[in-house]
């Protein structure tokens, strides 16, 4: 039997912190052994711990860290399809395949996540309006279920399990291997247009007008701006640069798929709580808005465009020892008033956030608990101060009344009674979980908090 360790774990937000019995198998066969005969009452899979809240926590229960099961199994260059184990990180995929002319089909704001985690959270990126979420590019996967069976799942084989697992935050079983379809690219660069919008109405109008011309679109919002400036934003649109597009930049054209690597910096210690205060955050936001002049066609390498925060390891320490919550909600397009209300509450509150981002989502995906749906998604961090939970409660009620939903991969504070309304396909999800796992061998702190499987 595999060795375990009792460890205090948290998500990336470092709130909550909970003790679990952690296993980190290095052989594939060990996963089934732990799930089958391990002494803990239940287990949840964990990857690189980048979900913000308690999706990959299991208070006093078992956690199976799959980060060492990160072997790539095969690559079909013709189809661009990679088969790999669930613990393979997106960073490893980029390092291996970008030099060969392939990039991730969908990427979240960090590359330090695993393929298993990307499927379990059905992560999305700046191209959701055009391509949908990560699950759209999953050809198939193998799932180890609570009974020890290894189920092959795809849109045509065990389709209900496939759809319950995409966005199902690990509650259907443990993903062992997956095949994902990569995207062909000619260069490692993104051609980016920046445009400033003086307020939220202008930002939404600009997105509606221009998103269709770009693969990638996101807006950074100054969440402290008020009144006529409420929601003032920097819109950042991008397309993969073609080889011909590098003609004016011979230094880049010489090795178009291998941009110069910058050594990441690290936040070495927890910042004291007072470093992030309304004044420092206001200063940051003002400078950020001021320096982003309207620009057309800037060439930005993929790392700086997609992963600005990955360049600062342990950036979550900026929020101090108490950690922070990330809030992300999506509202239907008809609920612009609610979006404005959210921004107003945020700008008025003392729970100031460094970075808020806004994006317009495209169609809903097939995952039963998949987050994205057509509408506007808003995400920001809130430092963990005593008034945090009360403030989040207010926001959650607003979202619910606006017909929206919160993103499970980022949540640590929502209430169970909100979920059925936010996720109308919850019943289908529960049916699959209860069928595959009648004795509750899979569970997590989030599953219990939000009653995702059992009332």
């Amino acid at each position, binding site marked *: 039997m595999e*060795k375990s360790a009792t*460890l205090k774990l948290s998500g990336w937000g470092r709130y909550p912190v909970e003790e679990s019995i952690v296993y*980190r198998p*290095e052989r*594939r066969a060990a996963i089934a052994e732990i799930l089958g005969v391990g002494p803990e009452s239940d287990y949840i899979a964990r990857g690189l711990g980048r979900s913000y809240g308690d999706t990959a926590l299991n208070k006093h229960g078992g956690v199976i860290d799959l980060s060492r099961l990160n*072997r*790539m199994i*095969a690559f079909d260059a013709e189809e661009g399809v990679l088969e*790999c184990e669930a613990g393979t990180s997106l960073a*490893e995929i980029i390092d291996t395949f970008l030099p060969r002319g392939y990039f991730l089909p969908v990427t979240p704001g960090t590359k330090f996540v695993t393929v298993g985690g990307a499927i379990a959270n059905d992560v999305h990126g700046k191209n959701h309006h055009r391509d949908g979420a990560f699950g759209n590019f999953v050809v198939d996967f193998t799932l180890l279920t609570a009974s020890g069976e290894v189920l092959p799942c795809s849109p045509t084989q065990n389709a209900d399990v496939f759809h319950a697992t995409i966005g199902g935050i690990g509650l259907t079983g443990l993903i062992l291997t997956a095949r994902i379809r990569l995207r062909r690219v000619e260069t490692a660069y993104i051609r980016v247009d920046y445009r400033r919008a003086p307020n939220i109405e202008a930002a939404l109008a600009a997105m509606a007008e221009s998103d269709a011309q770009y693969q990638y679109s996101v807006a950074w919002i100054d969440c402290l701006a008020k009144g006529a400036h409420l929601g003032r934003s920097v819109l950042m649109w991008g397309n993969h640069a073609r080889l011909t597009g590098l003609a004016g930049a011979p230094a880049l054209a010489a090795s178009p798929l291998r941009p110069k690597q910058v050594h990441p910096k690290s936040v070495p210690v927890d910042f004291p709580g007072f470093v992030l205060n309304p004044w420092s955050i206001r200063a940051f936001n003002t400078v950020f808005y001021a320096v982003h002049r309207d620009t057309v066609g800037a060439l930005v390498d993929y790392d700086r465009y997609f992963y600005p925060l990955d360049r600062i390891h342990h950036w979550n320490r900026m929020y101090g020892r108490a950690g922070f919550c990330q809030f992300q909600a999506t509202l239907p397009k008809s609920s612009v008033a609610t979006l404005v209300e959210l921004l107003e509450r945020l700008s008025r509150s003392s729970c100031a956030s460094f970075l808020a981002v806004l994006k317009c989502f495209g169609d809903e995906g097939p995952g039963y608990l998949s987050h994205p749906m057509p509408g506007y998604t808003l995400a920001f961090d809130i430092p963990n101060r005593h008034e945090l939970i009360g403030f989040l409660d207010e926001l959650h009620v607003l979202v619910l009344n606006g017909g929206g939903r919160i993103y499970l991969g980022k949540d640590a504070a929502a209430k169970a009674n909100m979920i059925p309304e936010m996720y109308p396909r919850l019943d289908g999800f529960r049916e699959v979980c209860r069928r595959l796992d009648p004795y509750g061998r899979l569970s997590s702190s989030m599953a219990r908090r939000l009653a995702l499987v059992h009332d």
Partner: protein
Amino acid sequence: MDTGEQGSVKAVVVLGACSTIARATAGEFARDGYAVILGDPDTEEMACVAADLHTRYDVPVHALDFDALDFASHAEFLEACRRAVGGLPEGLLVFFGYMPEQAATQADFALAHRVIDLNFTGVVSILHVFAAAFEARRSGFIAALSSVAGDRGRKTNYTYGSAKGGLTVFLSGLRNRLHDAGVQVTTVKPGFMDTKMTFGMKLPAPLVASPEQAGKDIFAAVKRGKDVVHVRWFWRYIMMIICHIPEWQFKKMSL
């Protein structure tokens, strides 16, 4: 096949291939264009490692069943390596080893015997075969994983430590013998590694190396022709201190 010196194929044999350090080191050699021959008794896991190296680095990778304790099979294993890559591989990396709890090895001699055979006798047996072949060819490299535990006996793991200590001495002698033949022997002495052996132990984080870091250090040491390499480098100084504590004092300590 890429043939460098006469009778030498740009390939490296990696024994104990399923360990994370072996996998990381093999990756560094594969990145440098080496074909890789993996040897391990766990053929199912080894197939995953082989597929991974091939997918990531696009080099030929062969997986051969290898049992360190089946000494009689070791000469044939060398022949199987030759057949796999069409000649004698350039180098050999030995990573297999075994470290159960010290108390268990004290209670059960059969287990202590196994520790000695896996960490020492088995390595001597396979090196016996490869050293002769490399010596006859008058080129090649050998690197084997010993341990800082072999530098001084401690009550917490001296069974394992003594086997590794024996290996360190064996490698030192082998290096001396093969020097004239132009065959390089590198002794690798890891300190704390973030592997399944140490998972969950309360170790001071700055002293613990990741398998990826270890792989880079070992590859660099072999390429530079180092005799002894500590992984991470500062373990050399830590061990210098530990080895200089007088025995009359050391025997009273708990390390």
